[in-house]
């Protein structure tokens, strides 16, 4: 048996439709369930490359994790067809996740689209360990694509939903409610994940006003730091330096990034 081969196989114990065109799979795996929110799994699908997916929930007590994804191409389409008891070949947990929030400082979680899942995992894991209840702001293109709303509700956290087309919650994107929150809170901690333009805007809003942790996406090869495919421009010793999303991230502090 090759090294850690046992860790590469995880069975699907549940499968749900999380929203229109979005599926969540619950995997059983001792190893994966030791993940930190913001870390990811690198999942084998029929293509040449594995697919990186964040953990949508992490349950070390029952050795379970969730992967929640939107069907956007061949790999996610294949994954969406998997059934309970099917076995996935997964590398993980990979990368550096979010740091635990400072329990005495206020925090806010801002997710766009399929950036929401790792923020749910973070809320779930750290809610009990912080003094202030976090604000959650989640955005989507349209109401049918809002994911994990009920999960957040079950946790009882204050939740703002925005949709670009106004079909649910506040019309517009997540920036307005975030702005309001930033105006109202000092020394805030921002946890964010979503499309690059959203993260860039959040970075600009937060710089100098709050500590912001951004979980990034990038096209990946190996997922474990060997190929240097997944880089983002960051602030280096002397100017820009490219760092790896898969191992130096996916979570970066806003001021580390050079976009």
């Amino acid at each position, binding site marked *: 048996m090759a090294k850690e081969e046992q860790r590469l196989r995880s069975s699907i114990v549940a499968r749900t439709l999380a929203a229109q065109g979005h599926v969540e799979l619950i995997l059983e795996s001792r190893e994966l369930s030791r993940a930190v929110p913001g870390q990811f799994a690198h999942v084998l699908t029929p293509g040449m490359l594995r697919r990186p997916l964040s953990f949508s929930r992490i349950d070390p007590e029952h050795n379970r994790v969730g992967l929640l994804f939107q069907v956007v191409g061949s790999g996610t389409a294949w994954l969406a067809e998997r059934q309970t008891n099917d076995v996935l070949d997964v590398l993980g947990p990979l990368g550096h996740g979010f740091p635990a929030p400072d329990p005495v400082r206020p925090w806010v979680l801002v997710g766009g689209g399929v950036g929401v899942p790792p923020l749910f995992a973070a809320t779930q894991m750290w809610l009990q360990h912080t003094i202030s209840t976090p604000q959650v702001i989640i955005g989507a293109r349209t109401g049918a694509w809002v994911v994990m709303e009920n999960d957040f509700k079950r946790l009882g956290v204050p939740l703002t939903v925005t949709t670009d087309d106004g079909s649910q919650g506040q019309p517009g994107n997540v920036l307005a409610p975030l702005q309001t929150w930033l105006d109202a809170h000092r020394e805030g901690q921002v946890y964010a994940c979503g499309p690059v333009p959203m993260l860039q805007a959040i970075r600009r809003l937060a710089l100098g006003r709050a500590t912001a942790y951004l979980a990034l996406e990038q096209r990946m090869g190996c997922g474990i730091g*060997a*190929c240097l495919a997944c*880089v983002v421009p960051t602030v280096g010793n002397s100017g820009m330096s490219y760092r790896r999303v898969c191992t130096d991230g996916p979570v970066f502090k806003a001021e580390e990034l050079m976009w």
Partner: protein
Amino acid sequence: MDLHVEFPRGLTLANPVIAASGTFGFGPEYSRYVDVGALGGISVKGVSPKGWDGNPPPRVWETPMGLLNSIGLQNPGVDVFIQEDLPFLRQYPTKVIVNIIGHTVEEYRQVAERLNGLDGVHALEVNISCPNIKQGGMSFGQDPDQAFAVMQAVRGATDLPVMVKLSPNVTFPGLIAQAVEAAGADMISAINTVVGLAIDIDRRRPALGGVTGGLSGPAIKPVALRIVYEVAQQVRIPVIGMGGIQKTEDVLEFLMAGASAVMVGTITFQHPDRMNQIINQLPEVMRSRGFSSLQEIIGAALPGKADNTAEEEVSYES
């Protein structure tokens, strides 16, 4: 079964499977998933004298049974490699091949010289074939005279066994191979990636940040085999083959086409333990086809090999 392979200047691999440069980092990255000590060799990510930034992302793009990459040889420079990565590699019996790159002939010479005589460095692989950098890189591998000049400079700077890695992006790869053989190369490795491009039709522009990229993976296996097969007949030094290896049978194809060992790259991203599996399966796959040593396989499909048709098991002579 004994799988060891011997190369010039005393380079001996315990088995013919080497991790290909750029797909296996500097060794430690994959060590959680790969039995690093069981590999025949590791060709580390290309290193330059000073360190390079590399190309803007996105740097990889999936294609049908292939992978386009435009890493642009990002690396921390040879000194950082020696200080931070080499100590890790020294703990294994696996042979360490350092892939070297430069913008100029002089840079190739510098990095070769810096690595000469270092404990834990067993061979150099001169990368004159990377399609992902503007200056130098592939152009050295597309012109016999420039290839000769690079190899000659490296030869003057090191006693290590040296292989030169061929570009497939030339009309006659054999001419480059012969030029570097004449300049003192001990081995040829082939092939580096094939220049390719993809369009991101949603963004309406080239998919990779570096515009063009290098194609690797199973898609290029026929191109790689053709070049190995041709070059093995055009030079006297051994050839190390690569390009699209996915399974043990693919290794046999490369060996029969004239390679003495192989490198395995892209498939590692999909299956980190595949190299280990191949090494484990090789004896059985060889035995089941009637081979008892690698020597019987290497070059078996080249013209002029006596026994290159396995006899029909049943005779229908009437």
